[in-house]
């Protein structure tokens, strides 16, 4: 009994510790800047939706005048970049993962490792040369350019996670399907991919979150036309002051899509993994 109670209290404390910043951001998003900056902070205030209104309408009223913010556009950009780069990575990475899992070929491991090594180097290392290349190639400030460079983040993730799932599928199952008279492409599409689906979903979700959270590539390689929310939030640091309320509201809005996706995928992932689909 006591042990249980203690455990519950401790867990509650941990949860509180980690959830408190989120709770505070939620509060801030419905406060005016004056309320936020009041010292000492107070929980008694008049909630307001004006931060959200400002974000959605794109009109930011400051003491020195009205500023245009492209927040909704940034949100859209985030979606385009995240979905686009994950889709491209799936298209390239899933067949590649299958190849690495099933076939031994010359330099195979080296290629796989090289792709993984993209994750080792800090982005700052390659950013400046990339900027020059992008300007030369006309890729600067385009969705395509950013989706391309996001492959550095998403492709290795998808490749290495999905590869493990493919390796777990019994080769006999695929052989059986070939012997039934199906081509290897049919075997890949109707046996390997469905059986690795939980892994593909997990990898895609993870890659999406990484892409969504990226800041530095988008900051340097694009203008506000293609920049995602992570960069867009900078607009609230204005000459006349920092608009904490809008930043908080922007944060809340930017978390929503990933949260929905995570909740949706979590149910799917747990189901997929507990099926023991691969073991047959």
């Amino acid at each position, binding site marked *: 009994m006591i042990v249980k109670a203690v455990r519950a209290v401790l867990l509650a404390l941990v949860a509180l510790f980690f959830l408190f910043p989120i709770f505070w951001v939620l509060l801030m998003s419905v406060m005016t800047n004056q309320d936020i900056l009041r010292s000492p902070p107070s929980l008694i205030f008049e909630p307001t939706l004006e931060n959200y209104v400002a974000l959605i309408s794109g009109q930011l009223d400051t003491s020195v005048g009205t500023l245009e913010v492209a927040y909704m556009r940034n949100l859209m950009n985030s979606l385009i970049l995240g979905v686009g780069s994950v889709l491209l990575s799936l298209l390239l990475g899933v067949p590649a993962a299958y190849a690495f899992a099933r076939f031994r070929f010359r330099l195979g491991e080296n290629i796989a490792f090289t792709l993984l090594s993209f994750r080792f180097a800090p982005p700052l290392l390659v950013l400046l040369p990339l900027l020059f290349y992008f300007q030369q190639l006309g890729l600067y400030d385009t969705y395509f350019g950013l989706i391309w460079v996001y492959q550095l983040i998403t492709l290795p993730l998808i490749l290495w996670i999905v590869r493990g799932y493919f390796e777990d599928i*019994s080769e*006999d*199952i695929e*052989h*059986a*399907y*070939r*012997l*039934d*008279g*199906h*081509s*290897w492409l*049919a075997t890949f599409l109707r*046996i390997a991919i*469905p*059986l690795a689906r939980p892994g593909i979903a997990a990898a895609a979700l993870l890659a999406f979150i990484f892409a969504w959270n990226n800041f530095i590539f988008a900051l340097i390689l694009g203008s506000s036309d293609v920049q995602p929310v992570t960069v867009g939030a900078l607009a609230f640091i204005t000459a006349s002051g920092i608009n904490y309320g809008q930043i908080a509201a922007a944060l809340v809005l930017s978390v929503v899509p990933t949260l929905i996706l995570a909740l949706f995928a979590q149910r799917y992932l747990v189901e997929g993994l507990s*099926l*023991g*689909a*691969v*073991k*047959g």
Partner: protein
Amino acid sequence: MAYFEIDRLSKSFGKSKVIDNLSLSVRQGESVVVFGPSGCGKTVLLRLISGVLRADAGDIRIDGESIAHLGPDHRDVAMAFQNFALYPHMTAFENIASPLRARKLAEAEISRRVHELAELLRIDHVLGHTPRELSNGQKQRTSLARSLAAPPAVLLLDDPLRNVDAKIRYEMRLELPRVLREYRSTVFYVTQDYKEAMALGNRVGVLYDGTFQQVDTPAGIYGRPESIRIARLFGDPPVNLLPARPELSGDGRAKLRIGGSDLVGPPSLESLVGRDLLVGIRPEDIEVLTEPAEGAIAVELDALTPLNVRAVMLLRDGQGTEILASCPEDDRPPLSRGRRQVWARLDLGRALFFDRATEMRIH
């Protein structure tokens, strides 16, 4: 007329030659059991035939046409896997229908054939289940049904009874020949259980060291094994191997000194006088007596194990050599457990004579 031919097939992995210059001809509709110890290359052989692996050298022909260059999907070869290899995300129905779908049959025809097979194998009540909802016996039948769905020219069965329990194994041993007859496929059946090999094959190929060491009827392999190793693999309890050197006795007949006694051998032994032999005697060719008798050697009974309908007796001769004897449980001498003096009469007329150096049988 050979229908299915394997011609000097070889396959190596790195430095180890798993299949080495292996050849075999099979008639249409014949069942050949591939029998061998684990790790002898049975599964590799099946994979070479199915096309999942490519051979380094040699050819495989069905009805005179080489299939060695074809992929597994074009070989007209089906296989039932030891671990069933069912598609976990499909129902039993879809598993069995898979070869028919590959052949793009009409939905009604697919349904008809799947139900027909399911009825034959008595799994029609579980067609809607996924593999993880099936018992091992049902999985095994589903995998067998799948391999038979589009009757293949050659059917490969990779130890299909290994992973099912004893009751189903016995049932299937009786049922399989009936099902296979119905489909008239040429069957390759891999097993490492000699009883299964005895029960199922028109012929048995004993595979080890990369090639067939002997191909014969089950009775032929049991009665005339080419080597000591084959004799040992085939039979349970295993064959007794007693070192002996035949000598001529005064009356011109060959005698063998076994267990401290001189035993008169069959006439065929006379040509082997002076050679170092291993005399192979099956346990059932040894009669255990409670009284001394003409031609029986004195041995000590060490242990007696009733095994279902047969009793197995562990005997020890004067030099301490162990000899196994077996007989139907009903015929066994009235012995209580515990060590005691008994006499064993060896039926040398049915003995196998092996050269001690080459370990090959002397004809």
